[in-house]
Structures are given as structure tokens and as C-alpha cells.
């Protein structure tokens, strides 16, 4: 890593004493084959009341950095060298790196001076202890409160993080909370002893974008009232732009760039930082390939016409009267939050689920129209040759026990279209088409990276010369640097093979980049359909407006939170989680 530019030492440090000073920190993991330095010689500092964002892709060492500070690195990791100086308010200082991970001294810091929240609030809370029990525990441990005092204080904390009916909420278990509520409870627990520093390790990654916005707001507000500093770990440049004072960009355990947020976003120096920022900025508009393409023939007969499709899982209406049409050669985006029914829609089209009612009229190449919802046996099999699917999980969707050639060639083989040497040649050609080296076709999926595996999945999808491809969150599991390669591949293939796409995603940016038209789903219903530009930038439906307003803009100069609001469903039955909306419009 000699190509690191001269990292400018933190400017404007005169303001006051720093809270945390990390110097030349090295955290390593001894492996059978040698020592792996997860964090390699990094230095940074945090000032009181400020927010430092550590940003990087998976494997960058950002999470290990956070855990090193509290010495809670997973075994067998350990701090090899460097110092972590904590300057307390009372004037005392301590080097956390020197403390034994089991010592009383470090335990006095944990939860009291420095608290931490994590990515998965569900698994980060004990499943068999009440939330109240877990909060009062910290109070009693560090502040020596009596049981009654601690309980009162815990209820007050829950009130602060805007959990309704805090008294009752104390006696409930984590699994009885919603995802956003759990993270609020985690924050309440972390704030119990009024720490000077809150370390937040990807606290919003597992949450929907509207919930994320609320949690970010909450942290910001609590930070203003308590004056604590925040060390925020994330992979999302949009979040960074919204909340950071300073930014630390990490890649493979080393610092790529470190500076004030405005400088990082508007005058980045390091090529890796530029790539990260470029990748979010790219999602602010339509792809260049798209803009260069001649406009679609919007008068053509739809290739797929879905009418009044409904589907239930027990009581829940996963799809509620959904109607939408797909034009030939079009990319139709389906966007929505978790539980909106977008995946169910994709799987119903593929007939992995059998819809309860409704029709799906598919116009075959010869002009014949069939109803996919009614097809069985051979007819269904024939239709599935022309409708293919790309899955979200690049690991789970490939049989690990088959070679790549077998995976890609299987549709040809089982449909009796090709075999032997001819099959082999076609597999090679397909791998070429998706940008994979055919020489690797005898390898097993485990030898490929996530992005490569997704290419294998795409090759399998185009094997039978399909006319429609349903891509369900096809790029969500990939790092940003790889995501664009896959998106661009999909668009290139669309033009080459005259495909129509149904592109399902939770990410408005990806939808805006890829799609011609977009359908927005909310609780099983399609609330809005329109041109991608229109829906993504100037939507009509209040839910879509709320969704768009919640997306963190990747520009630190555009932090107007007053534009953000939460959608409240105008329906007779009131969902208890709607109480959350107290946090909106602030």
C-alpha cells in the first residue's frame, strides 16, 4: 500500500482536547497460514460532540477498528501495537490498547465512557431476557443504582428514544419489538450511562430506508442534547454524507483517505474514495447506456400483462390486487421496503408461488397469449424457458456441488436442447458473453467471488434465449465497486438479446439507474406506477414521496432533514408501529 498519498494530518484540531486518539493501531488475527492484519497501522482522532464516519466495503477492517477500541475483538484477534488514548472529562487519560481485555479497567470504560450498538439489533439483544432487564443491568453495574431507581431510569431512557408506553415496553422481549424499535432499545441501553462516545457499527444496515432515516435522526438529536461523540461505521456513502463531520475511508485494513466530510466528498484525492463517491453519484441519474438508447416503442402490445394478482400467506395479503404490464425490451423496476410483496410478485410470475387469484397474460414469440397463472406441466415448462430468473444470493442460488459448466449447461441439458461437445461450446460462449473466462468452467462455484457468481447466475438465465428476466435484488449482496459491473452487464445483454427485465430492488438509486418504468409496492399493493425519472424524482403518491425523502443524499451540503417525513397509511386500522411517526418532521 505504498500508493497512499500523503495523508494530511487532521486539520483544525485547535478547537479543544480530543476525546479519543488512535495512533498506529495494528490489529491482527493469527491464522494457520500466517498472521492476517485486519487493521494495519491506522491513526485517527475523535473530538467531543463530533461524528466520525469510518467507511469501507466488506473486509476493509472498519468493524475490527471499532471493536479494537473496546477490546472486544472476536478471538483469536488481538491488538498488536499502537495506542488508543481516551481523554476523560475529569482530565484523566487512559491508553485502552494497553489494558487487558478482561481487566477491570477496560470494563469500567465499556458501557460507561464508551458504549456500542451493532448491526443486527435482534441478535444483539438476548432472546430470553426482557429489554428492561438488559437496560437496568448497565445502570446497576456502572452507576450502582437500586433496582427501583434503575427501572425508573430505564423507562426514562426508552422514552428518550421514543418507544411508546415505556413502562410496559420494559417487560417485553426483543422478539416482540419491531426492527426499528429494537435498534432504539439498543440505543437506549448504550446511552444509559451517558457515554462520551457512542460507537455505532452499521446500525442501520439491516433496516429499511425509512426506519434508517428515523434512527439517524434519533442519534443526531441525542448527540445534540448529550454532547457525546459518535464513531459511525458504515458502507453507505449516502449515510456518511448526511451525518459525518469527519470521514475515514478504509480499504483492506489501511486508511485511504481521512478528512472533513466536505473535503472528502467535494475534493477527494484518493482514487478509491473517488470510486466510492462516484458509485453513489452514478445512481443519482440514469445510466449512460440507457440515455444513449433509442426510446422504447410505448405503443407495442405488452409482453406480460398482470391483472388483479393476489396471493396470501395465511392471514397476510402478500399481494393485493396487483396489475402491471411489461413492454417488450423494457426494464420495469419494482421497488419497495421489506415485506412490501415485491419478492412475492417476482416469484409468483415465475410460478414458484401459486397466486390465489388474478391473471398473468404472457405473449409468446409466436403471438399466442397464455395465462401464466393457469399453466401446468409441459406448458408451464415451455413458458419457463422464455421467462428466467436471476436470484439475490450469489452463494445460495448456485448448487455448490456442480461445476460452473454443469450449472450453466443444465437448462440446455434437461430441456434436451444440447449435449456433449456442442453443449460444452455453448457453455463457453455463454461464459464469454457474461465476461467470464471459459477456461474456468470446470471449477466449482466456491472458487468464484460474489460478483463472478452473479455473472454465472446471469449466464444460466440467458442460456435458453429467454424473452423476460426477473431479477430479484440481483445486486443487493454485492459491494458497490462490483455492483456497477453487473448492472452494466445486464443492460448490455438486454440490448444484445432484446430482453425485457422485471428488476426488483429496495434501492431507489439502482432502479433510477437501470429502469424505464417503476412500480412502487407498499404492503402488498402497487401504489404508484410511472416513468422512472418521474417516480424517482417527483413522485405523486405520498408513500413514494416519503420513501424518496428518506434516502440519504450523497452530498454533505444537502442535509435538509426538514424535507423528510413518514408515510402514514390512511386506513381504518391503526398499526401500533405508526407511533414512530412522532420522530418525523423535526
Amino acid at each position, binding site marked *: 500500500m505504498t500508493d497512499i498519498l500523503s495523508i494530511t494530518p487532521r486539520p483544525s484540531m485547535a478547537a479543544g482536547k480530543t476525546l479519543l486518539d488512535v495512533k498506529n493501531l495494528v490489529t491482527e488475527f493469527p491464522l494457520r497460514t500466517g498472521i492476517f492484519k485486519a487493521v494495519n497501522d491506522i491513526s485517527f482522532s475523535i473530538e467531543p460532540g463530533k461524528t466520525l464516519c469510518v467507511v469501507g466495503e466488506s473486509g476493509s477492517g472498519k468493524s475490527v477498528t471499532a471493536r479494537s477500541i473496546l477490546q472486544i475483538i472476536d478471538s483469536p484477534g488481538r491488538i498488536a501495537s499502537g495506542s488508543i488514548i481516551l481523554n476523560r472529562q475529569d482530565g484523566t487519560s487512559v491508553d485502552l490498547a494497553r489494558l487487558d481485555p478482561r481487566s477491570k479497567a477496560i470494563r469500567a470504560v465499556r458501557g460507561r465512557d464508551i458504549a456500542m450498538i451493532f448491526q443486527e439489533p435482534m441478535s444483539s439483544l438476548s432472546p430470553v431476557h426482557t429489554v428492561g432487564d438488559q437496560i437496568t443491568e448497565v445502570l446497576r453495574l456502572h452507576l450502582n443504582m437500586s433496582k427501583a431507581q434503575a427501572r425508573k431510569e430505564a423507562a426514562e431512557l426508552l422514552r428518550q428514544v421514543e418507544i411508546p408506553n415505556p413502562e410496559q415496553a420494559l417487560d417485553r422481549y426483543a422478539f416482540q419489538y419491531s426492527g426499528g424499535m429494537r435498534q432504539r432499545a439498543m440505543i437506549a441501553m448504550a446511552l444509559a450511562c451517558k457515554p462520551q462516545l457512542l460507537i455505532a457499527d452499521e446500525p442501520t444496515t439491516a433496516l429499511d430506508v425509512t426506519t434508517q432515516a428515523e434512527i439517524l435522526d434519533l442519534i443526531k438529536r441525542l448527540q445534540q442534547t448529550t454532547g457525546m461523540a459518535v464513531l459511525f461505521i458504515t458502507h453507505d456513502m449516502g449515510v456518511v454524507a448526511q451525518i459525518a463531520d469527519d470521514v475515514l475511508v478504509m480499504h483492506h485494513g489501511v486508511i485511504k483517505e481521512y478528512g472533513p466530510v466536505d473535503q472528502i466528498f467535494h475534493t477527494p484525492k484518493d482514487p478509491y474514495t473517488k470510486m466510492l463517491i462516484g458509485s453513489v453519484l452514478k445512481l443519482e441519474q440514469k445510466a449512460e447506456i440507457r440515455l444513449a438508447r433509442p426510446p422504447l416503442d410505448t405503443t407495442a402490445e405488452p409482453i406480460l400483462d398482470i391483472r388483479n394478482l393476489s396471493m396470501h400467506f395465511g392471514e397476510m395479503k402478500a399481494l393485493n390486487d396487483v396489475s402491471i404490464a411489461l413492454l417488450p425490451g423494457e426494464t420495469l423496476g419494482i421497488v419497495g421496503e421489506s415485506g412490501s410483496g415485491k419478492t412475492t410478485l417476482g416469484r409468483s410470475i415465475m410460478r414458484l408461488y401459486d397466486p390465489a387469484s388474478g391473471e398473468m397474460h404472457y405473449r409468446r414469440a409466436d403471438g399466442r397469449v397464455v395465462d401464466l397463472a393457469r399453466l401446468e406441466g409441459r406448458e408451464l*415448462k415451455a413458458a419457463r424457458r422464455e421467462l428466467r430468473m436471476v436470484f439475490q444470493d450469489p452463494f445460495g442460488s448456485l448448487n455448490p456441488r456442480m461445476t460452473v459448466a454443469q450449472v450453466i449447461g443444465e437448462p440446455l441439458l434437461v430441456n434436451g436442447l444440447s449435449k456433449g461437445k456442442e453443449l460444452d461450446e455453448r457453455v463457453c460462449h455463454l461464459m464469454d458473453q457474461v465476461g467470464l473466462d471459459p477456461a474456468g468452467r470446470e471449477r466449482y462455484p466456491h472458487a468464484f467471488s460474489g460478483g463472478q457468481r452473479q455473472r454465472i447466475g446471469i449466464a444460466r438465465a440467458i442460456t435458453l434465449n429467454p424473452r423476460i428476466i426477473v431479477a430479484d435484488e440481483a445486486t443487493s449482496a454485492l459491494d458497490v465497486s462490483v455492483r456497477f459491473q453487473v448492472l452494466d452487464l445486464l443492460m448490455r445483454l438486454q440490448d444484445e438479446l432484446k430482453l425485457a427485465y422485471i428488476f426488483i430492488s429496495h434501492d431507489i438509486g439502482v432502479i433510477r439507474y437501470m429502469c424505464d418504468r417503476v412500480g412502487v409496492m407498499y404492503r402488498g399493493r402497487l401504489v404508484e406506477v410511472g416513468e422512472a425519472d418521474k417516480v424517482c424524482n417527483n413522485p405523486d403518491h405520498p408513500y413514494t414521496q416519503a420513501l424518496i425523502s428518506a434516502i440519504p443524499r450523497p452530498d454533505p451540503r444537502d442535509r435538509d432533514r426538514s424535507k423528510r417525513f413518514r408515510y402514514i397509511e390512511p386506513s381504518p386500522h391503526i398499526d401500533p408501529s405508526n407511533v414512530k411517526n412522532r420522530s418525523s418532521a423535526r
Partner: protein
Amino acid sequence: MVDATILNDRPDRVAVAAQWQLIWWAFKRHKLAMAALFVTVAMYIVAIFPGFFAINDPILQNARSTFHPPQSIHFLDTANGFSFGPHYYGMKLTRDPNTLAAIFVEDTNTKIPIQFFGRGYTYSVLGLFETNIHLIATTDNTKPLYLFGADRLGRDVYSRTVQGAQISLSIGLVGVFLSLLLGIVLGGISGYYGGRIDFVMQRVIDFVLSLPTIPIWLALAAALPQGWPAALQYMMITIILSFTGWAQLARVVRGRFLSLRTEEFVAAARLDGVSEGRIIFRHMLPSFSSHIIASMTLAVPAMILAETSLSFLGLGLQPPTVSWGVLLREAQNIRSIATAPWLFMPGLAVVIAVMALNLFGDGLRDAADPYNK
């Protein structure tokens, strides 16, 4: 994801390594399991060719050798000058003048050389042909070698233990195989179809698992007529043992089927136009066959223990069939074992066999899924 440490070792070979290759590499790193595999294989070889490894005819009685103590093989002879070569010494039989109890004393003057691959009693190899070549053979038939001593009727405990391996080790395999057939069919149906069939099957499995096995085996075994031929008895005992053994395997199979049903690659195969049969045999079966084999390996020792216990209680296999459980009946009363503690030797064989199979199965189970590390 493949175990990262294997990946780091040899990325090129790992890239093209099929599942069994990966499992084998993972298994090989487990030293104790490798040792157990070695012992297991050795024991099954003995079980296939017990006659070759035996020294004396296991059913031959010898009144002069009642409770003959074990002898050891020496390689260096200093009593009669100085010479090398495997041999043992004859035993002199004397009687305690007061109690008239037999006392065997080693007589270093009668040195009897041992022959490897020498001739002994005639035995049949798997019923295919007859031979009289043995791994160890004595050169003096009037003074037999008793490695593990002799029992109440002067029969050679070592040769009987070796002979018993055949029945005891094979009954485990056959019993597990029968359980597996039942388990795969019932568990597979349950897991594949799900729904109401699964619910009923689940209750049945839970019920069978909550039954105490031994009293039920006893009752079933007591129903067998005493006079049946050995082969029929053997079959019936294995069937009785599988009567309760299938439930555990059915549970494993069902669990695997259920989790595989929701795997995305199975959904992907269905969309590829793959037929149900091919999905089961090409996609699902290879994915859990390693787990099934591991569960089977762990079920074999339980079967061996069960047969041993049943036969020991007199409700399993009956003499003259030789199995470890039948042999241990000789050790049933305290007076016999006080005089001849070597009657425990078949028990030692049981412990070694069961331990080796357990360790082997354990290692196999740890290595069975090379993709989910």
C-alpha cells in the same frame, strides 16, 4: 463458502475440487478421526476374514484348558540359550493341593515357535472356498496358543473374539442399513411433502423416540422362538433393532429435506426445467448424502451396543452363534470373572470398536459440510 484455511492452502486444486474431495481434505486434518478410520477399517477386515486372524478353532472345546490363562508371544529367547524368533512357552498344569484348583505355570523349557501364514484348522472364507492358512499358527498342536486365555470349556477367547467380530460388527451395519431404508422413505416423505403428512410423521417419530428401547427390544426378542436357525435369528434381531433406530435417521433426513426445499439453488433448478426426480437425485440427495453417511456412522456403534446388551441378557443371539454379546455371557457371574478376568476381553473389543466408530463418525460429521464454514 469453503473453509478458508483449505482455500489458502491450494487454491488451484480447491477450485476444481468436488464435494467428496473437499470433505476428504477436511476430514484428513482431523488426526484422531483419521486414526479411528484406520482402526475401523482394520476391524472390519478382521470381521470379513475372521478365520484367517484366528489361531484355534473357536468352537473347539478342550477340557484340559479350562480357564487357561493368556499367554504372550516372545521374540527374544534367553531361557534356552539366546535366539530370535517369535515363539511362546508351553504351560504346565498343576493343582492346588488343598483346593484342587487348576494352576497353570509357564514352562520356559518348552519353547514353541510361531509361524506366520502357517497352517491350522480349516475354515471357510465367506462361504466361497476353504483354506487352513492363518496369520498366526502354532507349530505344536498339542500345546495351543491362548492369546486371551480360554473359557470355562477351554475354548480360545482370542479366536472367539475375532470370530465374534463378524456378527457383532456386521449386525451394526445391516441394522443401520434397514433403519436407513425406513428413515429415508418415511423422513423423506415427511420432509418433501410437508403439511399434514409431515405433522403426522413428526408425531410418530417423536413417539418412537420417547420410547425406552431396551424393554421393547426385550419384549420383541422374547417373542422369537428359541429354536430358530442362526441366520434367521440374526435377521430378526437386526429387524428388532431397526424397529426403533429408524426414527433418529428419519428425523435427520426430514430436517435436511426441509432445509433444502427452501434453498435457492433448488428453486433455480426447478425454473431450469429440471424434473422432480432429477431435483431429488441430482440436487438434493448429493447435498445431504454426506450428512446421512455421518449419521449412519454414528448409528452403527449404538446398534453394536444394543446387540451386545440383548445377547448378553440372553434374549439376542443364542449360542452356538458367536458374537461379542454372547461371549460376554460367559462373564455373567462374579465367580467366573474372579477366576478368569480375561473373559472381559470381548468387552474390550466392543469398547474399541464403538469408540473408533464414534470418533470416525464425529470427524465425518464435522467434515460433512465443506460449504458452510
